[in-house]
């Protein structure tokens, strides 16, 4: 029941004496909604958390080769030679070593090195990796179809993403996974279109954003619900009138009813229609969200006081009231920006990567505390990777890079995909520029397909979620797109939905 219907049911006469809040509270009690910190055995709940590193993270300074064997795995030396003044450290011992990362091969391309470390400021990520809760995907990026050689790229023998190297396009394409279009819906939105029906209550969208409007969560039927990181019932919706006005309750009801009426009118102008639709939906959701938040339990995991950590802490709180919100599937979206480091790269990474690492670790720990660590999978995206060579004190826009997948259901402690060779020679079949720009080996489609299958999208619905996926992958039993998810507790769904495949 949404708030507007609720108001109708109470009737106008009751509004003065019975406050909406107390009615909703008792309603909640009647339904037996109580918060729970631990996951009921077999609870069918899954959440996906997308962390966007806006600006294009220099991910070849996040995950680095550490080998120094001349004639063998000499990854660190090659790294140092290429990155020159952008090298994070002059010795591999400065990096935080990853235990046996088993960097594999992908689509016929071999992983260039065997020994790896992460940026010295990423202890949390190192710990998650070494305890099997986090993996990397290497040389992943936007692709319409596989591009096997630089020649295929230079001679336009394969489709190239639109606006390659442009922030606005690449950041969008990582969220749509449809690099040949500027009009595509987001991957999270399309997944929600498929799975939203499994949620019993649609008063609050299953797609919740800590970063306002975004492409990722935009579906045909589902739009994002934007919240503040200050997850507090008193911080939701329209504030009250000053106490000295008197009759606050009545005034507030009158005002809310008037706003509902104003935005509920029929408008012919499309901009007015669009505005009123958002306003109406928002008005309808505030009380539901406010009520649910009253049931947030005490969470003991400590989150650092950074914007990213506080955003993730807010997600933990929202997940803790998933039952009050009546949702079995949720998709969250957060942004942590400032990665467009054309200048001041090393200092910039030193200040931002620890924020990332600490926030992700705290968030994982909080899902353990809630008993849902195996139900929540977090992944990172960014506009693009950056040039391997320096522009003096920073790096410029490139293409394929490295990202992270984290969660209890992740096959952790591994580097999936194929980490590319860090040189610019003609024999490097990934490099397409004197600046060091790599053709992605793994497509965003394959990463999303793996997540979608785990999340409960059936193989036959994948063509709605990922229109280009057929260029890279087709499902068969026990053949997964990349392999970073553990499907033991998540059998492949056979529930198909009547949505046509999308084409662009």
């Amino acid at each position, binding site marked *: 029941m949404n708030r507007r219907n609720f108001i109708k049911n109470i009737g106008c006469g009751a509004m003065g004496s019975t406050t909406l809040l107390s009615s909703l509270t008792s309603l909640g009690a009647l339904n037996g909604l109580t918060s729970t910190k631990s996951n009921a055995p077999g609870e069918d709940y899954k959440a996906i958390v997308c962390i966007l590193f806006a600006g294009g993270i220099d991910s070849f300074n996040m995950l680095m080769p550490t080998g120094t064997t001349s004639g063998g795995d000499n990854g660190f030396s090659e790294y140092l030679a290429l990155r020159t003044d952008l090298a994070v450290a002059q010795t591999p011992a400065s990096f935080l070593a990853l235990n046996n990362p088993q960097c594999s091969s992908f689509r016929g391309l071999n992983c260039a090195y065997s020994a790896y470390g992460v940026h010295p400021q990423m202890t949390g990520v190192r710990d998650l990796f070494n305890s099997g809760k986090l993996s990397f995907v290497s040389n992943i990026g936007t692709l319409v179809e596989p591009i096997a050689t630089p020649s295929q790229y230079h001679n336009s023998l394969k489709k190239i993403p639109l606006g390659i190297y442009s922030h606005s396009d690449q950041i969008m394409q990582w969220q749509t996974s449809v690099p040949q279009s500027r009009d595509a819906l987001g991957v999270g939105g399309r997944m929600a279109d498929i799975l939203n029906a499994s949620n019993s209550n649609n008063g609050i969208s299953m797609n919740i954003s800590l970063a306002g409007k975004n492409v990722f969560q935009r579906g045909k039927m589902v739009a994002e619900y934007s919240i503040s990181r200050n997850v507090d019932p008193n911080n939701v919706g329209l504030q009250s009138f000053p106490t000295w006005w008197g009759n606050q309750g009545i005034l507030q009801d009158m005002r809310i009813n008037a706003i509902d009426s104003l935005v509920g*009118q029929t408008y012919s102008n499309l901009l007015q229609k669009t505005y009123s639709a958002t306003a109406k939906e928002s008005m309808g959701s505030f009380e539901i969200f406010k009520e649910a938040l009253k049931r947030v339990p005490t969470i003991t995991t400590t989150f650092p006081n950074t914007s990213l950590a506080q955003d993730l802490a807010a997600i933990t709180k929202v997940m803790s009231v998933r039952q009050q919100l009546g949702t079995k599937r949720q998709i969250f979206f957060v942004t942590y920006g400032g990665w467009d480091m054309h200048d001041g790269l090393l200092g910039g990474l030193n200040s931002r990567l620890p924020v990332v690492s600490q926030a992700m670790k705290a968030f994982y720990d909080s899902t353990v505390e809630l008993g849902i660590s195996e139900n929540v999978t977090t992944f990172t995206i960014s506009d693009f990777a950056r040039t391997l060579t320096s522009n003096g004190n920073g790096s410029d826009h490139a293409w394929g890079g490295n990202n992270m997948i984290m969660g209890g259901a992740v096959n952790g402690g591994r580097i999936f995909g194929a980490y590319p060779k860090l040189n610019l020679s003609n024999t490097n079949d990934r490099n397409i520029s004197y600046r060091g720009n790599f053709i992605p080996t793994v497509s965003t489609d394959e990463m999303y397909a793996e997540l979608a299958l785990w999340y409960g999208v059936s193989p036959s619905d994948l063509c709605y979620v990922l229109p280009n996926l057929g260029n890279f992958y087709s499902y068969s039993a026990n053949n997964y797109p990349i392999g970073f998810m553990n499907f033991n507790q998540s059998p492949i769904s056979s529930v198909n939905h009547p949505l046509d495949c999308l084409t662009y």
Partner: protein
Amino acid sequence: MKNFILCVTALLCFRVSYAQTNKTFGKGNIKGVTVNASSNASNGIKTLMSTGYMPNSKASSRFLSQATLGPKLSEIQGLQNQGIEAWLDQQFAMSPSFNLQNYVQNMHQSMVDSLTARNPTGNYTLSNVFIDDWAFDVAWFQANMVAADRLRWRVSLALSQIFVTSRISAFDDNPYALASYYDMLNKNAFGNYRSLIDSITYHPAMAVYLTYMNNHATDTLAISASNPTKKQVFPDENYAREILQLFSIGLFELNNNGTEKKDANGKSIPTYDNDDIGNLAKVFTGLSWSHSRYLGDNNNVTKWSYTKPLKFFPRDSSDKYIRWWANPTSWRIVNGHEPGTKTFLNQTVPSRPVTDGKLDIKDALDIIFNHPNVGPFMARRLIQHLVSSNPTPEFVDRIATVFNNNGAGVRGDLKAVIRAILLDPEARDCCAEKENVAYGHLREPFLRYMNLVNGLELRNQSGTYRNVMVDLYDRIEQKPLYSPSVFNFYQPGYVPDGPLQAAGKVGPEFQMLNSLSFANYMNGLHKWIISNDPVEYWGIFSGEVYKPDQDPNFNISADYVLAKDNRIREFLDKYNLILAQGRIKPENMSIIQNVLLNMPMTYDVNGVPDATLADRRLRMGIFLIMIAPDYLINK
């Protein structure tokens, strides 16, 4: 073009013959329009709404809602008598009336003086007394409370959202950097686009923001005689990319009407590729601070360094200063500016001595300036900011044509472009909505605030205002020079889901609208009008005496008489006119009126409304007007 017929029918609609096509506009909704004369000016666009156009009150308010940061009742009435063209002439004739940098410096000096007065031996100077970025906001707000050149400030706000630099950057605490950049926009707002991009290119705030400060030529030589390791340094590509994508031509080739050209396969045609960017990046090398001794010198950078144009260094002689003690023959002196030809956009900047490198920059900016995309690109952006998110191709075409040639053979005349936009039939026709259901634009949050401040004529005795707008930004996430990235608060091509998307239309400002920002706006409005706290006054230094006059609020007592049951409609009509250009529809007026009539009210023996209750009624009324969709969409 010269000969067009302007006639007035009984329904008061115009019938205009324009380039051999007839366009009827007006539809009778502009009541009270009087047409005195037509003009024989050579420029058809100019003529179309020439001196004869005397708007009624709604049309006047509507024009001012596009040409200023929010109409005031007195201005609406003044414009009705003055006429739109005369108003524009007057506005264009005014020099920039307010210098933000001077204001910041004066405020800064008064801080120094005050501290010195309290502690004469403190040795306080402008250099050692800290002043934060909000001093820029105080200056900006002050300017907009007093400046008569209202059009300039409307246009410079738009320019600040096209040629974006932002305090979310290395100069986040430097009000001088922000003020200097904004002054530059104000100075160029009615000038030529070519001068504008020149001033931008040489402005340190942009150079730091888009990271071409101290940008270096390609350097792949050995580090030194004793260290054969080769450097791998290449020019920073940031500015090269964004000046093309965001400041001039965009990603795809355009027709003059702003639509994308298509190749034989129906595909859009990219304007440049990564090689163009690599080459243009080489052009923007060798620029440093005005006080720098060498390329790469970041010493002695002060707040004022950001106010002086960049200096050009053909060679990188940094070694001479860094290793001053070494044998001069061992100094590593290399090119600072990239030598050789630079080819981009199918044109070539010729090879010349690096000492003439500034000519490379001039040539490159000329190449960009003369690209046929610039006219339609700038036309569309400025129209979107001032008038409507979805201009017709014909509208863009007319404005791009003026950009290409102002009628006197000059390309890039922004004054002519702005005049043409505001006088265009598609901007002036109040009833275009009937033909174009996507007409207008969502008022962006900061404009709503300025609408309120102007519409309710916030004022005090002293004429000095101290509004840091910090809480304002926290609530609405928008104020000048505070964009989250070079892509502005919202992007020109943003398509919100819902009906606009279905119709293939854009709604740029909708990128800022969501359930959270909607609540934040309502609560901001609640603070400004219901709680009557529109200005955020901060002390400048500790121990300062609070100056309540500089912290004014909205005094609406003159309207209390309209709070009476039988006059409440007058009140709503008045603010509907001022804030919403009279566009709140009757059903919504009734909804708001019913709320106000249901609020308590008492009268004294003379029938005068109780002041407290009247105040509440009126504030609730203004709040609801500014929530109504027909206010939020300015069309």
